[in-house]
């Protein structure tokens, strides 16, 4: 199903025809709706919920293989292969359990859906490190000046990087993210774990090496917060498998 009509804003009226509901709920043509999408996205989200529950129960680090991924999904808008926002759902679960979660998105692309869900809120901090979207998906979100609105002002931090950024500059940037996360009183960390900053990822946006990923992992471990690693992007290459 590929809709050919889209509403320009969320306050627009809601149609009854399926194709035009799809137009309302799809940001782009990279979120194909097929027969089993609901079931896969549902269990992908539930995997993140289970991870959040285990983190709350005392685990220090967990990995959630969420697929379909989630960080381009807004509350009512799919996009970029994402349907339910898995990290957002995990953060809500942790918030309800009494935590103060932050979501750190290290995918190659800005986590626009996550930003959108929490943009006017101060109870879930959202931070994203990604390729500068001025000429890169998702284009309309992810710029440094997007800091949150209303109660959420200051609770969204975007750290866009030039295309081709490698290990050292990436590591410097993640330290900036950590300083912000620490300063705002976070007690649990949800990582939107894209592996596509990898230098040999087919999308070729950043140039993080395998040793660079090890350094990122060490930096996350050294940061010391209970951490939920939720899979986002990262596409097939000879090195990934």
């Amino acid at each position, binding site marked *: *199903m*590929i809709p050919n009509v889209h509403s320009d804003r969320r306050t627009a009226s809601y149609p009854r025809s*399926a194709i035009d*509901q*799809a137009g*309302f*709920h799809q940001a782009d*043509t*990279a*979120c*194909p*709706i*097929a027969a*089993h*999408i*609901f*079931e*896969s*996205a*549902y*269990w*992908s*989200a*539930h*995997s*993140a*919920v*289970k*991870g959040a529950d*285990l983190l709350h129960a005392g*685990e220090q*680090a*967990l*990995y*959630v*293989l*969420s*697929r*379909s*991924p989630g960080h381009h*999904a807004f*509350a*009512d808008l*799919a996009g970029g*292969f994402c*349907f*339910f926002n898995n990290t*957002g*759902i995990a953060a*809500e679960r942790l918030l309800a359990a009494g935590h103060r979660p932050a979501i750190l998105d290290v995918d190659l692309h800005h986590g626009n859906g996550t930003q959108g*869900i929490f943009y006017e809120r101060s109870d879930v901090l959202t931070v994203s490190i990604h390729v500068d979207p001025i000429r890169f998906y998702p284009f309309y979100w992810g710029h440094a000046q997007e800091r949150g609105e209303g109660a959420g002002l200051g609770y969204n931090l975007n750290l866009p990087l030039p295309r081709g950024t490698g290990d050292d500059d990436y590591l410097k940037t993640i330290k900036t993210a950590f300083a912000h996360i620490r300063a705002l009183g976070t007690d649990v960390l949800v990582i939107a774990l894209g592996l596509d900053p990898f230098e040999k990822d*087919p*999308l070729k946006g950043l140039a993080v090496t395998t040793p660079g990923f090890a350094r990122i992992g060490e930096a996350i471990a050294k940061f010391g917060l209970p951490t939920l690693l939720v*899979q986002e*992007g*990262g*596409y*097939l290459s000879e090195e*990934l*498998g």
Partner: protein
Amino acid sequence: MKAIFDDRQWKHDPKHFMANGTVYPNPEQLQRIEVLHSGAEAAGCSFQAPADHGMGPSRPCIRRNISSFWKPSIPTGAGLRMR
């Protein structure tokens, strides 16, 4: 490290997407599960499956009845409504 995955995540298998006016093979392929799952196990992860909590945990991140055109069937416990 504990890890979470549910086998029903295999079911979504779109073949194509569109960009720049062209149809391409979908890079979000099933084989990613195979690679990520085996990579995680090789790194010492031990997988378990989640329980079904219905739509409750997802509801704070869902604003419209986005399932109305996605779902051929909603799993047990689900019941999305507009809010």
